[in-house]
């Protein structure tokens, strides 16, 4: 299912760079973001749009989810981006500057119109909604619920903190509020929660600490801006042996109890209920993706 696919890392690829566009999937990110928005200077918007469209037509992005960060429909570039990109049916678009459900609905309606006109089944292309303002932060629940196309929520750390008047720090405490909002809204809507980028590409320890922190908070993944950040984030999103061991025992107890028709499951004197099973499944999915479960499944 599209909404449940693994998105530990989402790698930004500037839409202006043909070499990186051609090689985007070789770095091992779970998802790639072909960027038409902030990574592209205004005079090159037309060139990037055509380059990315052609790359979608002919580059085999094996293994990775392919997404395109379009320009918002409130900009002069958004509609042209949609008209060139949607007919190529990428897995999803990343919709920036989502402030309300109306922003998602407007995108959804335009996507449906373009899909139907280009022979693509309506609803094929998903939306990963990016919120970058105080207003967007307040409206995250309605943004997540605005369309069945929404498969994940994401936020832009720089724009958001600038909008609320916060100062960016290494520790990132100024993001506590938006992170909590993203996770809660995502969980209510049953979609994924994706964390923003870590800007210092030379600080791998800082990146690891932040990625681990957001995984423990409940995020499903994190955007990255350089291929060297990918293995570090994947490591942070790889469960520990202890976590994997417990998850296996939970699943074994769950299967055994299910086969007996037992309603209540106990493990080590602790009641195992649906959320514990769900968490165990998620841990094992992450472990499998990281290659920690050879020969299983």
């Amino acid at each position, binding site marked *: 299912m599209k909404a449940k696919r693994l998105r530990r890392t989402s790698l930004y690829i500037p839409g202006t*760079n*043909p*070499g990186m*566009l*051609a090689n985007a999937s070789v770095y091992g990110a779970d998802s790639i973001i072909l960027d038409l928005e902030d990574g592209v200077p205004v005079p090159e918007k*037309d*060139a990037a749009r*055509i*380059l990315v*469209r*052609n*790359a979608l*037509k*002919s*580059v085999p992005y094996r293994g990775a989810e392919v997404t395109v960060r379009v320009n918002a429909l409130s900009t002069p570039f958004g509609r042209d981006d949609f008209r060139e990109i949607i007919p190529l049916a990428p897995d999803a678009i990343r919709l920036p500057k989502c402030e309300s459900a109306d922003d998602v609905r407007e995108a959804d309606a335009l996507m449906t119109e373009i899909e139907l006109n280009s022979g693509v089944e309506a609803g094929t292309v998903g939306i990963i909604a990016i919120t970058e303002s105080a207003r967007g932060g307040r409206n995250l629940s309605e943004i997540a619920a605005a369309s069945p196309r929404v498969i994940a929520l994401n936020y832009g750390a720089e724009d958001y903190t600038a909008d609320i008047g916060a100062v960016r720090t290494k520790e990132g405490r100024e993001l506590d509020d938006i992170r909590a909002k993203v996770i809660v809204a995502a969980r209510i809507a049953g979609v994924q929660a994706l964390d923003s980028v870590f800007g210092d590409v030379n600080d791998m320890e800082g990146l690891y600490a932040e990625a681990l922190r957001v995984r423990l908070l409940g995020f499903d993944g994190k955007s990255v801006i350089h291929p060297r950040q990918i293995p570090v984030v994947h490591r942070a999103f790889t469960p520990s042996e202890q976590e994997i061991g417990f998850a296996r025992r939970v699943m074994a107890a769950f299967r055994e109890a299910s086969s007996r028709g037992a309603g209540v499951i106990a493990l080590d004197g602790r009641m195992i209920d649906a959320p514990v099973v769900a968490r165990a499944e998620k841990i094992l999915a992450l472990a499998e993706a990281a290659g920690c479960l050879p020969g299983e499944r």
Partner: protein
Amino acid sequence: MLLERTGVAGSLESCDALVMVILSPDREGVEIELESPSIASFGEEMKRAVMETLESLDVQHGYVKVQDRGSLDCTLRARTETAARRALAVPDGEKVEE
């Protein structure tokens, strides 16, 4: 004479191509000047990609200079299309003094 409308797109970075399209109604057909490290193996194919792209935009008269740096077919077509669209966006039909 009619003003020749010019559009440029791309770069001289590796895996890219710098393409200049000059729309010139006085010219007979389209002339392509190609500079590429793979001209011996793929020169004709690359010129065909340029021609097909221009035909799709109904460009029939002009001059195209391609400085290729190992671009993929999809990149060369994208750069040609962008350069041609930029040239087509220049206001048409202005007379200039000879």
